[in-house]
């Protein structure tokens, strides 16, 4: 199973937003989350803000399951490592053999987890609610060459194709008693992936050649500028509201960060929520 962030046709507030609004959202909110929100409470607020957009877009959890698993698994790893090994950790909560779990470590682990939740909220909002052709038109209005935005389209188109190919290769080799799950770690490294990678490369190259032939036959890249049948959703009052909320949050965050090193002022944070220092 791959991470498939494909467009899901729906008619929600988020789907009706102009792609530019969503592009700005995806550019700014992760910056707020990753750079400015430096304590657990602030990061929780920003991730709640991002997840609210996701909720408004009504993206079914099942479609981003893999992404959620990746975020949770890597966060869990961070949490454990930070809990025991954070070098500034002083307040010991409990001991596990010779390891000391510290409150500071717990806080930093939690904060990193919440920062990652911001990404989880942002990426699907752009990728799964914006039609790629609308996205391309918006990019072309921003004077980004069509070839470049098309590279993006092709990547979006090509990845699911490659993931399908990979799955059927995996099936074909399992039928030859090539059982990766039962191999030991070393055997796996030595010979598990060769029978999968070789056909994948060859078939992918072939698919890419075919894609090129089909593209050129459709006069792709014939002219610097092209026309568009579709128009992306118009900019409406909702776009302005959304933009004001994103931009003002961004501006506020810069100011707050310079003052306190995080988004929330000290009097709104419990004493343990000390901003991280890098």
């Amino acid at each position, binding site marked *: 199973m791959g991470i498939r962030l494909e467009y899901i046709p729906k008619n929600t507030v988020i789907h009706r937003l102009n792609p530019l609004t969503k592009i700005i959202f995806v550019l700014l909110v992760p910056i707020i989350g990753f750079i400015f929100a430096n304590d657990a409470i602030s990061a929780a607020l920003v991730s709640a803000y991002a997840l609210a957009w996701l909720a408004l877009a009504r993206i079914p959890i099942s479609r981003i399951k893999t992404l959620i698993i990746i975020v949770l698994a890597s966060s869990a790893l961070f949490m454990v490592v930070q809990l025991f090994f954070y070098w500034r950790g002083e307040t010991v909560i409990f001991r596990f053999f010779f390891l000391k779990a510290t409150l500071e470590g717990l806080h930093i682990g939690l904060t990193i987890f919440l920062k990652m939740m911001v990404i989880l909220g942002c990426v699907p909002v752009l990728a799964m609610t914006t039609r790629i052709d609308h996205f391309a038109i918006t990019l072309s209005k921003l004077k980004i060459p069509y070839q470049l935005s098309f590279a993006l389209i092709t990547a979006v188109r090509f990845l699911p194709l490659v993931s399908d190919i990979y799955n*059927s290769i995996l099936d074909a080799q399992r039928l030859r008693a090539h059982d990766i799950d039962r191999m030991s770690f070393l055997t796996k490294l030595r010979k598990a992936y060769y029978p999968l990678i070789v056909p994948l490369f060859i078939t992918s190259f072939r698919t890419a050649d075919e894609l090129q032939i089909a593209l050129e036959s459709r006069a792709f890249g014939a002219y610097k500028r092209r026309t568009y049948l*579709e128009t992306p959703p118009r900019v409406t009052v909702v776009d302005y509201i959304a933009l004001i909320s994103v931009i003002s949050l961004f501006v506020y965050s810069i100011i707050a960060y310079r003052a306190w090193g995080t988004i929330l002022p000290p009097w709104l944070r419990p004493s343990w929520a000390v901003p991280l220092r890098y």
Partner: protein
Amino acid sequence: MQSVISIRNLTYTYPTGVKALKGINLEIERGEYVVIMGANGAGKTTLCYCLNGIIPHIIGGELQGEIYVEGNRTTDHSIAELSRLVGLCIQNPEGQLFCQTVRADVAFGAENLCVPRDELAERVASSIKVCRLEGLENRSPSDLSGGQKQRVALASILAMRPRVMVLDEPTSQLDPIGTSELLSVVRNLNKEHGVTVVMTEHKSDEILEQEVDRVILLHKGEIVADGDPGEVLSKADLLEKIGVKTPQVIELARRLKRNGIPVEGIPTNINEARKLLSSLLDRKILEVKQKLPPPSSIEESKPSSEEPIIKIEDVYFSYTPESPAIRGVSLQFHSGEFVGIIGQNGSGKTTLAKLIVGLLRPDRGRILIFGKDTREMTPGEICKKVGLAMQNPDHQLFSLSVKEEVEFGLRNLNLPEEEIERRTESALKLVGLWEFRDMPPFTLDFGARRKLTVAIVTAMDPPVIFLDEPTTAQDYRGRYEIMEIMKDLNERHGKTVIVVTHDMEIVAKYCKRVVVMGQGKVLLDGSTREVFSKPEILEQTFIKPPPITRLAQGLSAYGISPSILSVDELISSLKFEGG
């Protein structure tokens, strides 16, 4: 007279050194419907690529001679310029769709040509209408069937308003219904809208029914015949030599002539053949022998009392909760059977195959293989009992030599070295690839690669061999070669063979029993004769019996058995005057 396409003395060699076209001279006139036929490797695709400049602009190589489209020499114009004149639709429906809605995909080419928006909208709407895609405009192309996808590609090219449409084996990956829908759209384009069509195809029976103006036969890069379809396709000896299938109705007419029956003209479709036969029967030139062949012969569907080797009990399976793929299938397969599984794309055939070999697990119900539940086995264990040869050989070949490729699976089974040697040799000899044992698999042609996958499966020595769609991307000869191997495995080696296919003539020729699937259920299960004599049920899953069977069914008033499966059978059920 101005030709749309004019090819003079074209010789082309690929960068790899393969000489694909030799001295081609060809004039195609405005409004013509031309079909190019020939075996795999005859140069059909190469010729298509030459027409819109893919060769030599993308694929280099050495091109001699001249190609003119509407007076423009292809070497002097870019592909983009040529795309206003020649539209190309390729074999694989997946590889030529780029957008997230049907509408956007149809507009894609015309947008690239900078067609103004008002005109664009008009062109897109009319292309969608002509290609019968109304109601699908906002669907994602990835949700469509293969036939629908291919029609989206066609519509997209149509919206570019080229003078000539070039279609390279557009139906090769489609089921019978997808094929006939696509071909009828193409015919309509040509007849009603005056578009010049150049198409390559393998399906000679279908071509004969398409009101094609001209058929060209290619053989090893040369044109060996060019003319009226009825005339060209009745050159049975030539067709046999170059690996193109003779249509059944023409084969029938030829056989009648050979038996001294006066046949005037050549029937080019079932209706004409029926008229011909009924007039011969009316005039008592032909008579029907009685009782041949019997409607349902008992020896073919032997009700076996022994325990089935595969037992499917009320199995349900779905990929997503909204669309169940298998809905309550119960089936039994007995040792030594030769079974065909048929049904339109999406009817659950491949899913069923994957369930049996353990790549998927039933949501409900169970599958027993030699009495053991598939849920308790891994695919690696099941492959010793049921071997599945999947459709695309390129999804599994990775070794440096043909021999190592076969050995790979055997080593995974931890067999002793001498046993591996023995099995590899016998499997490669069986499929006729032993002499190529040291060649890298990727240098083999497609048909040989497909045979190699069969060798891989048979080397594992499973009692049951499952073959998924031997026809995809295979020419007529390739299909029958694979099926002959299956027949050999079934008759001489006692293997149970199950074949999933769209090719009804293959089913009629080889399978003793047929399972018909539709919408995840078993619609019919019986002897091949029984199944093909129920056209009304077959229609539900968009299957038509082979042309010769349909012809016989149209003549049942004369006492001809409606369960005739081959030209041979029809001939032998007839009594000739004096004979």
